[in-house]
């Protein structure tokens, strides 16, 4: 089996699995319990929290603006939703103020759907696409959402640089960064304090599912002007922002996966870069034979994600032909989607990625992970060439 859909989810890293297994067996206590078992577990969770905070230089200890807190959530979707919901509930974005919100239609649905559902109906927001960011009406810009790595195109954004520029224009803009695809693969540095909140995820980088992080500036703690707003009410875990029994085993395992990823960050990057380049090169060699396109240059993308346009052949048919050969890639399109609305959102998505309408049904996403090997990719290139060539005779 050749798994090339790591941007959707990754297999768990072995050392992380060991930690997970052990913790599932041993750490059965509830970390909120008052007894010794609970207290000890709680201490260990707090250590992980400190670890993740220090990894992104989230606390400057007096020198600089960085002063972040961190809560463990169940998914990147939850983290994104929590921030967007909070900005609505705490009145940061209010009706009648002509708010400008910058994000991308190509962002993860947990951002796009949350924005349209939470802000779309209530406020008279002016939604603009981040790719055409301009300084105009700087004082009206309220919220900017950046994806460190876009999950469809793989486009990489230097979030430090981007936020610095935005804050220079208007220091009051709220900047949220979705780093779910980039965490553990690219450096994330919060030391300059320009970013207001960050989402990361565990299962996109070899950790277990069901755990994610939300970094946020301490100034959003309770009783200040912009409180974070819980989605779940209950036992006041995570400083009261996210009630739920703490998923300690997943948190420990996430930490272990991150440690591994961090240690091997450069080697991983170099490997995947090579692999990505190889796929681009060998599939382009055949371009005379078939019209394959790579709409996004490697220089501006994360090498972990490779988006291809295969003209003439519907992507889902290619995907199923590859699936028959035990190769798994991803596509968002289908010849006849079940819902009209998903058709519409797909259109918006690819428009914002500048993919022409004629190719919307031909977009294929190949995404690599830490476990991807060169021989796997060779096999993929081979099979893809053959299948695509074959199908071109039909379509």
């Amino acid at each position, binding site marked *: 089996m050749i798994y090339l859909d790591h941007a959707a989810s990754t297999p768990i890293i072995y050392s992380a699995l060991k930690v997970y297994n052990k913790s599932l067996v041993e750490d059965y206590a509830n970390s909120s319990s008052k007894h010794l078992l609970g207290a000890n577990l709680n201490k260990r969770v707090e250590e992980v929290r400190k670890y993740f905070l220090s990894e992104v230089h989230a606390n400057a200890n007096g020198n600089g603006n960085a002063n972040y807190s961190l809560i463990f959530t169940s998914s990147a979707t939850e983290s994104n939703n929590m921030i967007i919901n909070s900005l609505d509930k705490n009145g940061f974005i209010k009706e009648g103020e002509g708010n400008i919100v910058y994000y991308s239609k190509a962002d993860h649905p947990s951002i796009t759907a949350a924005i349209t559902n939470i802000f779309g109906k209530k406020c008279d927001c002016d939604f603009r696409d981040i790719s055409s960011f301009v300084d105009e009406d700087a004082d009206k810009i309220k919220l900017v959402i950046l994806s460190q790595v876009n999950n469809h195109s793989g486009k990489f954004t230097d979030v430090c640089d981007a936020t610095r520029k935005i804050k220079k224009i208007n220091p009051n803009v709220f900047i949220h960064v979705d780093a779910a695809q980039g965490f553990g693969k690219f450096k994330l540095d919060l030391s300059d304090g320009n970013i207001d909140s960050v989402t990361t995820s565990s299962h996109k980088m070899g950790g277990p599912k069901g755990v994610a992080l939300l970094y946020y500036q301490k100034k959003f703690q309770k009783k200040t002007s912009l409180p974070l707003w819980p989605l779940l009410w209950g036992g006041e875990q995570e400083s009261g922002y996210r009630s739920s029994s703490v998923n300690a085993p997943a948190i420990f395992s996430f930490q272990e996966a991150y440690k591994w990823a961090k240690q091997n960050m450069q080697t991983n990057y170099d490997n995947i870069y090579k692999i990505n380049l190889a796929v681009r090169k060998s599939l382009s060699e055949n371009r005379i034979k078939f019209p394959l396109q790579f709409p996004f240059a490697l220089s501006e993308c994360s090498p972990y994600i490779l988006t291809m346009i295969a003209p003439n052949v519907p992507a889902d048919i290619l995907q*199923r032909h590859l699936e028959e050969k035990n190769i798994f890639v991803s596509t968002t399109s289908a010849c006849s989607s079940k819902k009209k609305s998903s058709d519409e959102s797909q259109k918006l998505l690819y428009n914002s990625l500048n993919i022409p309408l004629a190719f919307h049904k031909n977009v294929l996403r190949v995404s690599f992970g830490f476990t991807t090997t060169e021989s796997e990719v060779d096999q993929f290139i081979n099979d893809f060439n053959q299948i695509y060539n074959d199908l071109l005779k*039909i379509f």
Partner: protein
Amino acid sequence: MYKILMVNVDEICLKGRNRDTFWNKLDAHIRSVLKVYQFSPTSKYKCYRDDLRYIIEIFGDDYFNQNTLDALVKIPGIYSILLARKTALDFEKLVQEVFVELDELKEKGLFGQKIKTFKVNTKRAYKRFSMDSNGISRELGHLILERYNSKSEVIKVDLHNPELVILVRVLSGGIYFSTKTLYGIGGLPTGVSGRVLTLLSGGFDSPVASYLMFKRGIEQSFIFFHAYPFVANEVVDKVIEIVKKLAPYQSRSILYVVPFGDIQGSIAKICKPEYRTMLFRRYMIECATILAREIEAEALVTGDSIGQVASQTLSNLALIDRGSEISIFRPLIGFNKLEIINLARKIGTFDISVIPQDDACTLLAYKHPVTKPYRDYWDKFNSSTEDEMNVKLKECLQNSRIMRVDWRGNVYNVNNVNCSNVAETIIQEKLK
């Protein structure tokens, strides 16, 4: 809360000396429905024929539940089912019981509103009963008027178009009466006309074609050509849902899901693009023919309607038939789309068929498919690819997924070893 059903049959009454064969099939079908839905440890039921009526009676504290009634009205061959009550052979008692039932209607406020006219229809098969049919109808009608007709709730007798019919049947065992009638689908009992293999797609037409064949007492197996990897696997789930809707008309339904993507892919690669759909159909028929022989089905059924799409022109259908060794029935041949859709709504397949799906034929179809095919090309293509196709047909039949659906809609996977063996012998015969 009824304990007696009187079943009136449809076309059985047209039969002569072979009538018993038909009765036995219907009897078996009804009993198998009762066995599943009407099970109660404290009650027993009895089924018996009384001339042209079939009576089901429950003894004990059970009564007919809605599931039984829903299943019974789908049994082919049944014209109508009367929900009846029974009294002793005594006119006074009959009147009392009828009043009890009509009082219920009165309490619901139906008289004068929904029910303004009524009639009593009596048949006296038991001639020793002292009053004759007309006498009973007249007397009962008179008493009903006396009791229920008032200034605020006016009801009248209307013998031609009554809104309420009170049926009275005087039989040797007692007097039965009924005010509620359920209508069945009519036709002949399932199984009297043999077995066919029905080609199902996920669309509107084929399920309706299948329903029409059920009415004629035909047992059916189903075949679906699954064009994976050109279409997604969800299509199979949709077809299973359709089979579930058709399954109640017979006691067990078998669905063969034949992997057909490979064949369609290879045909599309080598043939003239305008002939694609037609050639797909040709090999579907060929494949179905082999399977039909194997499962001893005597004909194929499709949902074709003349001229509906390009592949259903008269020339194209005729060409398909020319190469077929087996009869192909097309019950929808003269139906308009709207008529088909109305029937699909009636049998409940509309809501499933309406879900959009990928269809390999349209996916791979050429902009201008052939409507008047050239025989020369057709024959040449078929003879030049025969060997290759035979091997592929064998392969796809061997790899079919076989499912059994019982009429409550439970799906079971079947490992039918015979399927591939017989397919093999048939193919070998052809290769010789």
